[in-house]
């Protein structure tokens, strides 16, 4: 597997059509640029409705109505070939990209197995190309690497606990050793102890397979435990991308600052303050910087023009007028 791998997202813009004739839509992704590197764990943070899951679906190429990509490109180059996800047809994505180059662990992973099929059939139908015996050996090895016993393979999904089903879905996603794995809110409905186990497993596989892991979650604590870099999203824009320690020690964007300050920590009872107001309705988002109605530092220019997405340091970006003057 020769080295080079990265994903380049250029000027991506996507909407959820509400009423096509009247041209009413929810502007879910607005001018997103992101460069995802080889072998890194990128966290995509942001609160409900900021578009992080939508971005993940588009990067994976799972775009169907009412979601519509208006402009922008997503270039994945892996195994010395280049794919523009947006221009590929659904058939091409399915044949070339899905599960070989890029795989996707969906939200609510506990209930995504087919209730009327045994666990092992989920794997066999994917492998199928080699001899049944060889297939089974590979599947057993993969299952045992997630800490599950091989008897699990003969069981039906409803006979297993939530945690077990979660690990099976993870094994399914890693079966072809993909170059990038997207995990969409992997541990929201899971209790804390199981969450730690699952996230540790994700990181362990990422290290072993040396691929890129994109974790989408609203939980800042999860990002601080697993992510190398974090992209913070607000109302369809990426407002800040920075290295994990920087995000928590010296957050750049006012939204990130507000978010980090509002998180209580055990052992520290100092008063915390949340953000005023609530996220905008993306059917008619505010002009200029979409955070200006709630931003304590909002200047006149913020209300009129969209802040540029500039690289403050290597691999660190921010979209805020506070940083363009200097």
């Amino acid at each position, binding site marked *: 597997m020769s080295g080079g791998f990265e994903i380049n997202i250029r000027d991506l813009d996507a909407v959820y059509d509400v009423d096509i004739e009247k041209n009413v839509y929810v502007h879910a992704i607005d001018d997103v640029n992101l460069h995802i590197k080889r072998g890194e764990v990128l966290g995509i943070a942001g609160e409900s409705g900021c578009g992080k899951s939508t971005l993940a679906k588009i990067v994976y190429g799972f775009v169907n109505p009412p979601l519509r990509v208006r402009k922008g490109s997503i270039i994945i180059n892996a195994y010395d070939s280049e794919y523009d996800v947006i221009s590929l047809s659904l058939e091409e994505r399915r044949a070339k990209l899905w599960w070989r180059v890029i795989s996707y662990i969906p939200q609510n992973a506990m209930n995504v197995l087919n209730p009327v099929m045994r666990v092992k059939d989920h794997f066999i139908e994917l492998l199928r190309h080699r001899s049944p015996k060889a297939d089974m050996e590979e599947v057993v090895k993969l299952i045992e690497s997630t800490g599950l*016993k091989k008897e699990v393979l003969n069981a039906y999904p409803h006979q297993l606990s939530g945690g*077990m089903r979660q690990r099976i879905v993870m094994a399914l996603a890693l079966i072809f050793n993909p170059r990038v794995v997207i995990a969409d809110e992997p541990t929201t409905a899971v209790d804390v102890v199981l969450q730690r186990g699952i996230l540790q497993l994700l990181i362990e596989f990422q290290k072993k397979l040396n691929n890129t892991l994109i974790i989408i979650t609203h939980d800042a604590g999860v990002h601080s435990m697993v992510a190398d870099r974090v992209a913070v999203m607000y109302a369809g824009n990426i407002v800040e991308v920075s290295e994990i320690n920087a995000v928590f020690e010296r957050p750049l964007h006012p939204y990130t600052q507000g978010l980090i300050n509002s998180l209580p920590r*055990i052992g520290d009872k100092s008063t915390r303050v949340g953000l005023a107001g609530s996220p905008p309705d993306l059917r008619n988002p505010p002009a200029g910087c979409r955070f200006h109605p709630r931003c304590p530092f909002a200047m006149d220019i913020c209300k009129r023009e969209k802040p540029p997405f500039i690289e403050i340091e290597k691999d660190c970006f921010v979209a805020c007028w506070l940083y363009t003057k200097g």
Partner: protein
Amino acid sequence: MGNLLELRNVTKIFRYGLFGFRFKAVDNVSLALENKPLIFTIAGESGSGKTTLARIILGYHVPDSGEVLYKGKYIHKLQRKDIKWFRREVQAVFQDPYASFNPLKKVYSYLHETAVNIAGIDRREADAYIDEILKAVGLSLERVKGKYPNEFSGGELQRVAMARALLTKPALIVADEPVSMLDASLRINIVNMFNDFRERYGILFIYITHDLSTAYYISDRIAIMYRGVVVECGPVEKVLTEPLHPYTQTLIESLPIPDPKAREKWLKAIKLSGVIEKEEFIARGCKYASRCPYASSKCFEEPPPDVAVENRIVKCWLYSEQEKPLS
């Protein structure tokens, strides 16, 4: 000053299907809360029985055994005249604001009913009184009147639910996961409000949650529940920083805290137990035995007693007189 609320060996049994599997959702829980304004947290993961316990305290579920006393009166055996008194004294706020209001009814109708039926406010003065309470939660009457639940954001609707509970000037408010559906940045505003009302109106809050960080931030005392049993109870500063019970220890260690420096300790691999929840519920001894690193044969046979350690109670054989405390 007797106890405001007292639970004595409360047990509630649930059944799956007609002759199906029976288990104790709440198993022999005893608690005592003095009559002073504070925030008491009941923390536990899903399936720990904390919501069932809340519904028992509200009088909605009747326990299969044990009693619940509010200001010395048995709440499940109240006579007619006391029911209205109990309803005025004890109110509640629920997890999902949109589920707490009937989508087909105007939100204002619940405020009006509570004010008139429970608080006994005269119909004519109801609007003024409601407006005053709504202002206390950062809203106003004309912002709320005539609107349906879907015309509010989650945060706003939860504030209306809080206002509805405050209308009767209760002494006890049971808040069942009041902020878990809200975004982190908005969550803290509502949590701060609890503290504010505790001081201003002298209300005792029972805060039910699975989020230990907010629990630490606002509460005074905490009880940790696991599979229907209170495993540890005491002042929150002590319990969450120097946890005694093995389950509480694992909980605190596993919590993903928003500080990258703790990553190295957090990534220390843990063994995920393959135990199915159902078995733990019907376990004879300690419910946590099958996952506990210190479990001995006694833990599997006999349910552990409540052991007093400093000003805390922990239900674990490790701390009973014969055994030397290990931690």
